[in-house]
């Protein structure tokens, strides 16, 4: 079986502090895996480490996209291999117009370059999907954007790149229910049209109503301690993370 994302015994951290203490995770094309857990359990560290953040250092283990090891690659190359991370706190880049930036990342990620006219149409459709006002394309990237606007801009970039593996780091935080639906629409579109797989990091089960998970994992102290179906999320919703059930060893799903 080819996994779109396969993580084996990943240990990583910052100087003198191990945060990920051996993470195993395997995701097939079109699968959605939700990753839940309380603050500080290592969810964001996992996302950032997979994308190659300079903040975190890999100590041990491997991670691959379609059998290609990515931990030895520059962030740029990881992106080119189909990995996408929707940032929890996207950076503001003053003076860089959204339109020309999106065209740049589109052209760099696709063999076929679109003419300005065709690209404009392509972009207009994606912005429509996200219910974004066309005037967004004349603004500077994320500069002065509200939290919700930034999240939509993440989704718009994702739609440009059409990644094989999508990591959503709390894409739902600070969003109202309408915005969650819109974001989910973009993610589901890529699952359907591009067989993308999703690692969905969240605190709340609410978004799982719109992006249906095949598996729900619970992370605790740098490890995945429980894996199950949607019922795990409902259990967490009801009992919280202190439930003693979480202390049982993680269920390994089939190799």
């Amino acid at each position, binding site marked *: 079986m080819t996994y779109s994302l396969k993580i084996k015994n990943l240990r990583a951290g910052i100087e003198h502090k191990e945060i990920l203490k051996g993470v195993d995770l395997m995701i097939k094309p079109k699968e959605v895996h939700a990753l839940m857990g309380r603050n500080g359990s290592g969810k964001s560290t996992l996302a950032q480490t997979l*994308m*190659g*953040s*300079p*903040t975190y250092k890999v100590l041990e283990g491997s991670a691959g996209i379609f059998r290609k090891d990515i931990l030895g690659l*520059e*962030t*740029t190359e*990881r*992106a*080119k291999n189909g990995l*996408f*991370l929707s*940032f929890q706190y*996207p*950076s503001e*880049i*003053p*003076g*860089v117009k959204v339109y020309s*930036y999106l065209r*740049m*990342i589109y052209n*760099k*990620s696709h063999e076929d*370059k679109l*003419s*300005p006219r065709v690209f404009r149409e392509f972009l207009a459709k994606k912005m429509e999907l996200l219910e974004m006002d066309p005037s967004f394309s004349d603004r*500077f*990237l994320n500069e002065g954007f509200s939290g919700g606007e930034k999240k939509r801009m993440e989704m718009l*970039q994702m739609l440009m*790149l059409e990644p094989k593996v999508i990591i959503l780091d709390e894409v739902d935080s600070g969003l109202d229910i309408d915005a969650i639906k819109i974001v989910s629409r973009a993610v589901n579109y890529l699952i359907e049209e591009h067989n993308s797989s999703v690692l969905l990091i969240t605190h709340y089960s609410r978004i799982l109503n719109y992006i249906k998970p095949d598996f729900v994992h619970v992370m605790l102290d740098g490890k995945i301690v429980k894996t199950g179906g949607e019922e795990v999320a409902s259990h967490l919703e009801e009992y919280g993370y202190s439930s003693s059930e979480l202390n049982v060893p993680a269920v390994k799903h089939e190799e």
Partner: protein
Amino acid sequence: MKNNQLKDIRETYADKFGFNMPEQPFSKVQKGLSEDVIRQISLSKGEPEWMLDFRLKAYEAFLKKPMPSWGADLSHIDFQNIYYYIKPGDVEKRTWDDVPEDVKTTFDRLGVPQAEREYLAGVKAQYDSEVVYSSLMGELEEEGVIFLSTDEALRKYPEIFKEYFGKVIPSADNKFAALNSAVWSGGSFVYIPKGVTVKRPLQAYFRINAESMGQFERTLIIAEEGSFANYVEGCTAPVYSSDSLHAAVVEVIVKLGARFRYTTIQNWSDNVYNLVTKRARVEKDAVMEWVDGNLGSRVTMKYPSCYLIGEGARGEVLSIAYASKGQHQDAGAKMIHAAPNTSSSIVSKSVSLRGGRTSYRGLVDVTLAAPNSKSRVECDALILDSISATDTFPTMRINESSANVEHEATVSKIGEEKLFYLMSRGLTENEAMGLIVSGFIEPIVRELPMEYAVELNRLIELEMEGSVG
């Protein structure tokens, strides 16, 4: 697509380069400065007596004036090892082989056409495109606009010339203005008659000739009442000069209700000391804007100034400084508020990398004669690595209590997280850095004519290559 666009621009540029025939040949060239050299310059140009006197007085002032004790390091300038006037024939003696490799490489990468390269490298003194210049001049002449080399203007319009020349910047203003006043050659003369609006920018390209490549250009601009014009000089491609000193003087007079913009983009080769005095006299309800881009050179010291002498006058300076290895850009602006209700704005953006150094040096002087005046200063510095530096020397002299003066300064480094963010979208580190730098200077670049903006961004992309890792 982008490359084609650039190519098109290049091709039109080639058309735009206009050289006039050399002035009468100058028979004798010698290094160093003396009264005799100055007399020779004046004689060879067939100048009136008053100009020779002006030059000689300026020379006296030059000898008396001390070197500036502040600013960049100028101790390596050897005044006696410089040619102060090069006869046009000599310019051609330099051959393509004499041009340094790195300059040639940059030309290659920018895709500069050969003819333009030779001109930029100072190899070629004549470039035949008088047609463009003449047709442009045809339109302008009907309106009474004068756009000539300064030497030619002195011959053709001695009265206007004498009335304004050396009035905004007296010959003894500073050591380098004095030097320029003593040995000046070339530069532009622009006269915009009352009420005339010149829609297209007056490009120095159109009338450039061997002289204006010179080290001691002298530009004089008079914008009569209610007129409007935009003057553009320079080029983003590196200008190679074997002469190590460029000391220019630019004087602008903006009369009642007129509006004038002076845009400069220069990229000198990194052996050049670029020491330029630019000043505008801004009368009642008039507006003067300086847009100033300084790239390259070993040292640049340049502080475009506005003397706001009429009620309601406004002065603006937008400046970009870009300092790489071995370069010090000491740039800024001066705003002298000398009338009521005057306003000024200074926006300075500097980028330093590979050990380059940028300094912002600015003066806002609100005199007692300037009640209800406003000034806003914003200077932002971006440092790309740990071996580069920036500093800020803002001076505020506020003598009028009703003045409203704001000053904001920021220094930033390119954050790892911004680079990581952009790289996670498939950009390389250099591309990400280039994008951040372009965004940083965007507020000024958007004020440039389109072809300059495109070129400047392209140049920054090139500069970023190999800047990391």
